[in-house]
């Protein structure tokens, strides 16, 4: 069920009314309702894997409780690693089995050996990357005594299944989420109003911009040979805008929907398109994944290797971003994506740049020229890198870059721009960037604090956005990050 569908609107309204007006005002009833709604939501999205997710959640719940009963030592460590293996095993099987089988077959073929015709076609459960990491993180936190295990099975299942985040995150920490559902929620009109505005902003980014960009970018990436350099360059630069609007839009909707139930999820995007360097970028892009990787991959690794100095730091960064890359999926493009990110970090890690990663604390309307240049540089660098996530293969990516050069007007006689972008879409992108720049210190684009905007104008803004969303809805695509 997509967030931007009529069915979801009906579903959400029904659950919201039941949550605040019908069920008794206790956390037990509220959580039971949220869990039931979440199970229905997941079943409607991916019924065949509901049982798997339920089983996995119950196993993790029981395992965490078992871990704390054991004293520190070999037995506890063994159970912990069994749990990690179970979760990672599931993820590896569903996400990477096909890739490994195909890679092995290709390897055998290149050696002149038959692969026996073995073909694997494993279906990917929706949201597996997100909820597996969530449960892994939970187990790790329990093992390291950072949190107590959740004894209440209802609460734990509500945490795992909570429908706004089950399919595409954010990857929520138990220590952040569970305390919120262990007490009865009280209807907070301000929070709900903020949630509605956040949903609207998310829909604007996702439906009005990301979905409209989709067909344009698909056409160019699908046949780069047929397009002029300008169009190919435009598509490459716009892909990061598309994926940002798609994913941040989805995250804003998820956060907004959660607020309707009195629950705050972690912020997943903090305006990364305005980042000034690589460290700044990854502090702002897909924050829940980056912070998970930092806490559970980078920090332990850099701790173990701390005596190796800068070399240890580089190794830890490389492994972390390799994991970030392959988290996205089983393709060499994701591997290269991860490797490139760690290469970008090396100057920062080994050079004078370390420790100087800028904090975006300036509230000036216009950025300083130096800062603006750095932002532009980062944007261009990341555009070219993120295009890897869109290209189906390394060969395809190479073809795109090659076409960008070969199809230059002077070489090829092709026009610079063979497929202009719709003017209204350019306008929406500019509006989004301007609003988010002005609002960069706030959670989302429609927070009115410290802005002297009359109520009537605010209302008009909501109406315009809502109408645009209605007009553009269903014209485009699914959420990009569903595939991850």
């Amino acid at each position, binding site marked *: 069920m997509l967030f931007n569908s*009529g069915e979801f609107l009906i579903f959400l309204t029904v659950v919201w009314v039941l949550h605040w007006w019908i069920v008794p005002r206790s956390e037990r009833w509220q959580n039971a309702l949220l869990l039931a709604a979440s199970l229905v939501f997941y079943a409607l999205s991916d019924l065949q894997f509901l049982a798997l997710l339920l089983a996995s959640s119950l196993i993790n719940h029981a395992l965490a409780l078992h871990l704390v009963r054991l004293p520190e030592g070999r037995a506890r460590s063994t159970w912990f690693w069994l749990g990690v293996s179970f979760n990672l095993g599931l993820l590896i099987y569903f996400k990477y089995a096909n890739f490994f089988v195909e890679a092995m077959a290709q390897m055998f073929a290149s050696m002149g050996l038959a692969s026996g015709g073995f073909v694997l076609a494993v279906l990917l459960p929706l949201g597996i990357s997100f909820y597996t990491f969530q449960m892994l993180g939970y187990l790790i936190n329990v093992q390291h005594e950072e949190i107590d295990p959740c004894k209440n099975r209802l609460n734990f299942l509500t945490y795992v299944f909570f429908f706004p985040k089950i399919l595409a995150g954010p990857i929520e920490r138990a220590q952040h989420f569970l305390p919120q559902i262990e007490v009865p929620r009280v209807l907070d009109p301000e929070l709900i109003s903020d949630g509605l505005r956040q949903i609207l902003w998310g829909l604007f980014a996702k439906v009005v911009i990301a979905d409209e960009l989709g067909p344009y970018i698909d056409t160019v990436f699908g046949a780069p040979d047929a397009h002029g350099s300008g169009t190919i360059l435009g598509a490459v630069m716009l892909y990061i805008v598309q994926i940002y609007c798609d994913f941040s839009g989805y995250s804003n909707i998820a956060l907004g929907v959660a607020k309707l139930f009195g629950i705050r999820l972690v912020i997943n995007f903090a305006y990364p398109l305005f980042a000034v360097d690589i460290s700044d970028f990854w502090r702002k892009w897909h924050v829940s994944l980056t912070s998970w990787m930092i806490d559970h991959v980078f920090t332990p690794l850099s701790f173990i290797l701390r005596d190796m100095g800068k070399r240890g730091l580089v190794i830890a960064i490389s492994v972390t971003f390799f994991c970030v890359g392959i988290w996205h999926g089983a393709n060499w493009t994701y591997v290269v994506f991860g490797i490139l990110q760690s290469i970008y970090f090396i100057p920062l890690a080994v050079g004078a740049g370390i420790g100087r990663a800028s904090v975006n604390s300036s509230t000036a309307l216009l950025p300083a020229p130096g800062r603006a240049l750095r932002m532009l540089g980062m944007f261009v660098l990341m555009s070219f890198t993120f295009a890897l996530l869109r290209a189906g293969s390394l060969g395809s990516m190479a073809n795109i870059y090659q076409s960008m050069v070969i199809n230059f007007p002077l070489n090829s006689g092709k026009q610079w721009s063979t497929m202009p972008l719709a003017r209204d879409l350019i306008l929406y992108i500019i509006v989004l960037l301007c609003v988010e720049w002005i609002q960069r210190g706030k959670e989302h684009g429609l927070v009115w604090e410290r802005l002297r905007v009359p109520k009537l104008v605010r*209302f008009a803004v909501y109406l315009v956005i809502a*109408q645009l969303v209605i007009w553009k809805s*269903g014209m485009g695509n699914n959420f990009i990050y569903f595939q991850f």
Partner: protein
Amino acid sequence: MSVGRLVLNAFYFCLLLLVFNLVSIAITRSLLLRTDLTFPTGTNTLVLGDSQVEWAVNDSLIPRTVNLAQGGEAYLYSYAKAKHFFEANPDLDTLWLSFNYMALDHVQDTLTRSDRYIKFKLPFNFFLLDATDACIFLGLPKAYITLAQTPFIRWGFIRKAVRGPTNYKDLNFGGYSGTTEQKLKKDLSVRANEQKLGTTRPPEFGAARDQVEYLQRTIDLCRANGVTCILLNTPVHPVAQKGSDTTAYYAYIQQHFPDQPFFDHSSWQFPDSCFRDAVHLNAHGATRYTTRLEKLRSKGWPTLDRQGRTPEERDNAVQQQ
């Protein structure tokens, strides 16, 4: 902010949104209904139906005929079009209506009720529907969203209609479109594969409720307006014919339309070069087919054999052999 204030704000918001959308839909409908639906003088034949007829009848080659068929058109929309065009064009005396091997197969009700076809068809045809017809969409959320999107989708037409008069060609809801695409080889290969794997689903001809209802209504409408309704089965590739449950098809016609004029041209022998795919003619095939239709029409529709030959043509062919 109090809960009451929040609920009130949300209510005003939804109300304003609803009013804006209703007004814009109403304005769009009114502009569409103002369209001049009259055909060129002398037009007496209207062609309606789905893509098989849309691509097969080139109305620029056949006088006094207008083709307004469109790919994926449900009989609901053919009926609605017929109603309005009969009213605007009293000289119409013949309707050629597509009636192919899949016309009443149960899967064809998706043409009326599925989200996909609501999205593609409703913005272009909604203004033709009266209240009874529109009731089909009452329980379908997609219809409401699509209607709300209609002013945006038809923005080009609205701009034109506001500046000056519009005619039926501005409605963009059908008409001959000759195709030069070559998909026959691929289509035949897919069909052969399905046959081999046994994945071809046996059709259920006559099970499409909406299609059956609106086909009957169209026939009744023609009768009431003194229009001859001819059911037309355009030429298809022999492979497609073999793969269709023609027994159920002809049995249905025998049972339900024994007296209905029915031109079954499905077995006409056209070379592969005339087909876009196994069930559609390409531009070259359309030229050949339309020219043939006009010839037969000028001779008063003589009786033909299965290959589309008149008795004289059949005798000549036998003699030549």
